[in-house]
């Protein structure tokens, strides 16, 4: 398949250790909120995700916020969840995004709406994330809609998906990744990693099947802001694995030093992740704390002259 205009794709294919981040769009219509986040992240990242109504809370749409990021000179990754749109809307949004110069698409299932601020709403789930990956890849490669008709001007998208090595059942997580790769996922962003041993076990399974050579795996990083956040994530966030020793380490420092400690843990984790065969970059999810990203990137020396990743 041809190369898209995606900077992320270019960086990964050049063998550079990629850095992406995440920007949560505002709960309002003010574009300057997105521009501010772009200014913080610019220069530190190769691309930036915009979440799609994450945790089922209504926010500015990913497509619009991605367009603003692109105007600010950042390669945007449009996240798209299956919760809110059927195959007609999904394909329409992909065409619209491509027409506005967005070149990266991350296909996700989406959090259930009970977690958000409109728990009474009806969900869609016409498709699942694997079917969405396949449709997006075939729109590009075969110039064909899911319904079978031809596309006049196919969308050039670098298509990705997510993997959660910490979700259950564990034995199905590598086969599930294999399914996503078979569907056409060119890059993978993982759930944030605090439990390195479990992640290493997952990556061994990935390598055993050669999946790391068929897709670019970006390891997820979330800097902890406080011991309270670590505890909350460990107990209240579905699919998250924050081991006791990480929580204890955060609790072990004074409250006003916890942010620094969180960044330190993130940097140390990145150093360890870089040594894992098959990890081709990191995806930093600093939740409503974009300022942490340049600091982590600097301390982990991620944007220095290209180091050849395996």
């Amino acid at each position, binding site marked *: 398949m041809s190369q898209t205009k995606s900077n992320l794709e270019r960086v990964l294919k050049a063998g550079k250790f990629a850095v992406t981040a995440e920007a949560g769009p505002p709960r309002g219509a003010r574009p300057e909120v997105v521009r501010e986040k772009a200014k913080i992240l610019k220069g530190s990242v190769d691309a930036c995700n915009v979440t799609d109504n994450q945790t089922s809370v209504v926010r500015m749409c990913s497509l619009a916020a991605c367009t603003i990021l692109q105007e600010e000179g950042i390669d945007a990754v449009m996240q798209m969840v299956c*919760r809110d749109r059927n195959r007609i809307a999904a394909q329409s949004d992909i065409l619209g995004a491509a027409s506005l110069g967005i070149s990266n698409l991350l296909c996700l299932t989406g*959090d259930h709406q009970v977690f958000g601020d409109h728990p009474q709403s009806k969900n869609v789930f016409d498709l699942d*994330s*694997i079917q969405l990956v396949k449709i997006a890849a075939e729109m590009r490669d075969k110039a064909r809609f899911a319904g079978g008709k031809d596309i006049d001007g196919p969308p050039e998208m670098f298509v990705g998906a997510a993997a959660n090595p910490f*979700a*259950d059942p564990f034995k199905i997580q590598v*086969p599930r990744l294999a399914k996503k790769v078979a569907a056409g996922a060119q890059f993978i962003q993982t759930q944030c990693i605090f439990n390195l041993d479990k992640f290493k076990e997952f990556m061994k399974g990935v390598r055993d099947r050669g999946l790391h050579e068929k897709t670019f795996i970006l390891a997820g990083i979330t800097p902890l802001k406080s011991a309270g956040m670590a505890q909350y994530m460990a107990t209240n966030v579905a699919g998250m694995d924050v081991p006791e020793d990480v929580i204890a380490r955060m609790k072990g420092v004074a409250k006003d030093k916890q942010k620094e400690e969180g960044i330190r843990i993130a940097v140390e984790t990145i150093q360890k992740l870089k040594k894992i065969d098959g990890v081709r970059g990191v995806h930093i999810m600093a939740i409503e704390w974009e300022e942490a990203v340049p600091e982590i990137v600097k301390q982990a020396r991620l944007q220095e002259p290209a180091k050849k990743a395996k």
Partner: protein
Amino acid sequence: MIVAEQKPIEDIMGYLEGHTRILLLGCHGCVTICSAGGQKEVDLLAGMIELARKRKGQEVSITRMTLERQCDPEFLQEEMLGRVKDHDVILSMACGVGVQLVAEHVQTGIRVYPAVDTLFMGGVDQKGQWSERCQGCGDCKLPLTGGICPVTRCSKSLLNGPCGGSRDGKCEVNPDIPCGWQMIIDRLEATGCLDQYEKIIEPADWSKARDGGPRKYIRPDMV
């Protein structure tokens, strides 16, 4: 079976406001089995209505009747229709299907109200507990998923595996909900066909489900 639960008595009394001659109709079908609208529940509800009216000093006359099946016109004909003219309201304890068929077959302009909320197609977990098993999508996926329905048992109706919110066999939506995909994976493994999981299941044809509009099924050999 179709599982239903009785509506709050306050709602039911609201529908009956201003009516004195009530035909209370139970059903010997699913609502009898799930104890929502059989003869026993007809008697209980009639007693509650009479008591509520008595407290307010209001008159009421209730005819209690339980039909074989309210979803089949065969059982709605003489037995029920012959009694309708003596009443000014019908309160049906059948599922939503029964309530609608009763209303369709009553030609007198008499009002028909439901006494239950129809919940789902499900089975018995244990005495007094039922859970959903089928959504009637019209395109059964059970051969692909070890006999466990992903459309119904997965909170997101995912066809290609669990989402990232599956933890310790529980669904992210609610710890009382078992993860449908954990069950599917366990069953596939136990039956020696876990390799079947890696086959990508294509997007469903929802036109066979309610999304294609209200459905009709005709058996030419029986018409």
